[in-house]
């Protein structure tokens, strides 16, 4: 058995918009004489769109209608019907995500791009996806080392760190090619708030409407590059003339870990501006080339090893197209009519609560459900459990019965029971839960997904002969 899912990645950035279509091959990797283990075994990019300027109504407002038209046009170019797309992600990156109408744009596209395309955003996630698209993550696994990916876009630089193939940290900085814009004569059109603060601190005479002195702009881009070197060398700005520069440029939070970095990757539009060029510095009406040159020179002086990225400007969108969707375990229990189902908030029992006696366990579930309803005023939620490898049949019946008792409020609201369990138990647990309810009661029980309190999950339409369902987990862990 071998089949594929089509996934779309849509990246609407501060300055550019692009799409990719990817094919994910899923296959039962277990032998014929064991229970199936369906996995994503390969990913392949089918189509990369051109890179378009993001249509804006004004510098603060995305032109949602124009974005929609653009996306439609790209689908047509790719000869892709929205119905053929199984999954994917729309990401509104960089400064744009903070703009007022981002939500409206996402909603418009979610409806348009296939049945199960998820809108998501946030600088940390973006950075993580970029490092997967650029090859940084894979490199860290192949070479058993710690790798930092800088995805340097128009408005922000997203940093993600991978160790042995796992992401261990992410952060975002206001370093980008379009934080200062100039017109054809070299007159300053735009200065971001952070650049204004930085230039004030450095006492530079940068004023909108006035001619920019390249030397002043270079001082800004050099400082940004120095901040990046300091991040890569894990020195927290200690050697920069202006120690507060790093603080000024933090978008949301700084990095939290301190493992030494063994290699760096550069992706994003500015990564393409790091090559030496004879083009005038303001070719693109911004500081992209200046920043690229500053970064190149700054890193050449260090011992940090820079590795050539597989993808630069398309890293994020490829990451979005290939790395947001996962699949569930292969023995699960669900009512087909419930799927797809999106944005389900998750409540998770503690290990102690899960292991306690029946009475305490029912109480724990009941109180969590009540608390959640009181907080959110909605009763649809998924209960997440750990489970363990050696659940006996009788113990599983007890657990199923406790779950049904504890989730009474959900059942009274006639909402589906959605259970997520870490260990491979979903099919038997689902059957056992159903035994406690009327046979038609809607139940979804899936396993091998790891989630936490505060996460949201989307569950897609079953694939691989109904053995597995695609899932997208939107975690809040990184603070978006």
């Amino acid at each position, binding site marked *: 058995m071998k089949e594929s899912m089509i996934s779309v990645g849509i990246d609407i950035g501060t300055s550019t918009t692009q799409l990719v279509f990817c094919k994910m091959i899923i296959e039962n*990797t*277990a*032998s014929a004489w064991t229970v199936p*283990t369906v996995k994503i075994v390969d990913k392949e990019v089918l189509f990369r769109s051109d890179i378009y300027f993001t249509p804006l109504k004004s510098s603060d407002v995305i032109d949602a209608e124009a974005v929609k038209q653009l996306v439609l046009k790209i689908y047509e170019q790719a000869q892709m019907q929205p119905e053929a797309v199984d999954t994917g992600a729309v990401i509104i990156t960089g400064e744009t995500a903070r703009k007022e109408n981002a939500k409206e744009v996402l909603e418009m596209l979610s409806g348009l791009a296939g049945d199960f395309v998820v809108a998501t955003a946030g600088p940390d996630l973006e950075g993580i996806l970029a490092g997967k698209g650029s090859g940084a993550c894979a490199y860290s696994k192949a*070479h*058993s*080392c710690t790798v930092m990916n800088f995805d340097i876009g128009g408005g922000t630089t997203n940093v993600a760190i991978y160790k042995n193939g796992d992401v261990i940290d992410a952060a975002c900085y206001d370093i980008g090619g379009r934080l200062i814009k100039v017109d054809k004569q070299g007159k300053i059109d735009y200065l971001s708030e952070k650049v204004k603060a930085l230039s004030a601190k450095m006492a530079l005479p940068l004023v909108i409407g006035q001619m920019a002195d390249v030397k002043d702009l270079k001082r800004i881009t050099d400082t940004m590059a120095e901040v990046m070197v300091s991040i890569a060398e894990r020195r927290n700005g200690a050697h920069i003339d202006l120690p507060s520069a790093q603080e000024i440029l933090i978008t949301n939070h700084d990095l939290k870990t301190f493992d030494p970095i063994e290699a760096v990757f550069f992706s994003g539009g500015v990564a393409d501006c790091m090559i030496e060029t004879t083009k005038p510095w303001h070719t693109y009406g911004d500081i992209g080339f200046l920043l690229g040159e500053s970064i190149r020179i700054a890193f050449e002086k260090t011992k940090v090893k820079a590795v050539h990225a597989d993808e630069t400007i398309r890293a994020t969108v490829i990451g979005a197209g290939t790395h947001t969707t996962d699949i569930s375990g292969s023995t699960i229990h669900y009512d087909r009519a419930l799927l797809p189902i999106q944005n389900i908030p998750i409540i998770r029992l503690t290990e102690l609560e899960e292991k306690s006696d029946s009475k305490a366990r029912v109480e724990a579930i009941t109180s969590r459900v009540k608390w959640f309803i009181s907080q959110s005023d909605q009763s649809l939620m998924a209960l997440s459990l750990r489970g363990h490898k050696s659940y006996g049949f009788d113990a599983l019946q007890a657990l199923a019965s406790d779950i049904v008792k504890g989730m009474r409020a959900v059942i009274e609201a006639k909402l589906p029971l959605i259970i997520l369990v870490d260990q491979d138990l979903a099919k038997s647990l689902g059957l056992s839960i159903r035994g406690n309810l009327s046979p038609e009661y809607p139940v979804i029980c899936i396993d091998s997904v790891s989630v936490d309190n505060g996460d949201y999950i989307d569950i897609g339409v079953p694939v691989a002969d109904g053995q597995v369902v695609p899932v997208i987990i939107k975690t809040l862990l990184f603070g978006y």
Partner: protein
Amino acid sequence: MRLKTSLFGQVYTFGSVKEVLAKANEEKSGDKLAGIAAETVTERVAAKEVLSHLTLEDLYNNPVVPYEEDEVTRIIYDDLNRVIYNEIKDFTVGEFREWLLDDHVTGDMIKRISRGLTSEMVAAVTKLMSNLDLVYAASKIRITAHCNTTIGEEGILGFRLQPNHTTDNLDGIMVSLMEGLTYGIGDAVIGLNPVNDTVESVYNVLKMFDEFKRKWEIPTQQCVLAHVTTQMEAIKKGAPSDMIFQSIAGSQKGNEAFGITADMLQEARELVLKQGTSAGPNVMYFETGQGSELSSDAHHGADQVTMEARCYGFAKRYQPFLVNTVVGFIGPEYLYDSKQVIRAGLEDHFMGKLTGIPMGVDACYTNHMKADQNDIENLAVLLSAAGCNYFMGVPAGDDIMLNYQCTGYHEAQTLRSLLKLKPIKAFEVWMEKMEFVKEGKLTNRAGDASVFMK
């Protein structure tokens, strides 16, 4: 031809050469299961006595499976050197035994005579050998072969690196591979028994082995032990394989149970010579084991030692680089306990060498057999002394996929330093370059797989 003898006044009569061969066998539970073993210990000795007086020509005239019925018999007989056979056909089996043990008879002389032997002759003389006879006679015979490096030379003990994994997980395979190399395992071959006999799985593993081998410039050969047809498909799709593996049996019917024919192996050999990645000319790898014919009801009423010898006669046609018996894998219904396993290991190794093939042994046991790691260590020492080409190497002797135990990574250096043996030369030089060994001893890097994790 005399098929009768008397011992202590009792007369023993046998109906056929095949019966004499079966009853002359050392005790094996498989022969009992087949209902062909000697009834008493004395009858066994009587059969040996009768056998010792049969001539090689008697054996030639009585193959255990007729030429007309069986392509294994045909291959063995068609490949025989008639001139040499005519020189030795009047030897009795007893005389042949003494000739092999004679101080003036060298390995080269034995190798020449090999060309005139059928597998029944090889099996027959084995039945007259004690365990130490088998060790001593085998130690005279060196059979070398070349794939990317040369195996089987005097003073060399190789190991196959067997990094098996329960689900063919590539990382799981890789860590076993890396660690094995630091212990000096893998000079004979890096060879995985896959769980999934699929072209894709074979392709992926070979690709990974090849890249790793190139990155670290390891002088060895690689193979994935799927079915021959799966490997051929993978090679046609560009999988980098140095050789082709297949399990074989001592009769056509036994081979049919494995899903193979002689033509198929010929085709496989030609394919890997044309599209494989090795220097050659020896590009085949076979595994065998006493009892496999009986388990597929393809033994034709013959005993398991004779059927095993016929595997080697069949294998010889394809000029293999590696042949090994998986001696204790099949279970107690064929080899009951450690005593029978040790005996079978020594028999198989000797028979392989006498047939003229580069013989290794998977010295192993399963958990439903009355044997333990001590027995396998004993067998490994005996076989090392006998000049065995190679053993298996798995982490701590525990194969998590095949669920049996065999020789572990730690046995390599122990046996080599104990018996003054070395890895294959090119591999030894590589180990020194990698600083896993220095002046014949393991360094602090030996046992640390993470030296490769970069």
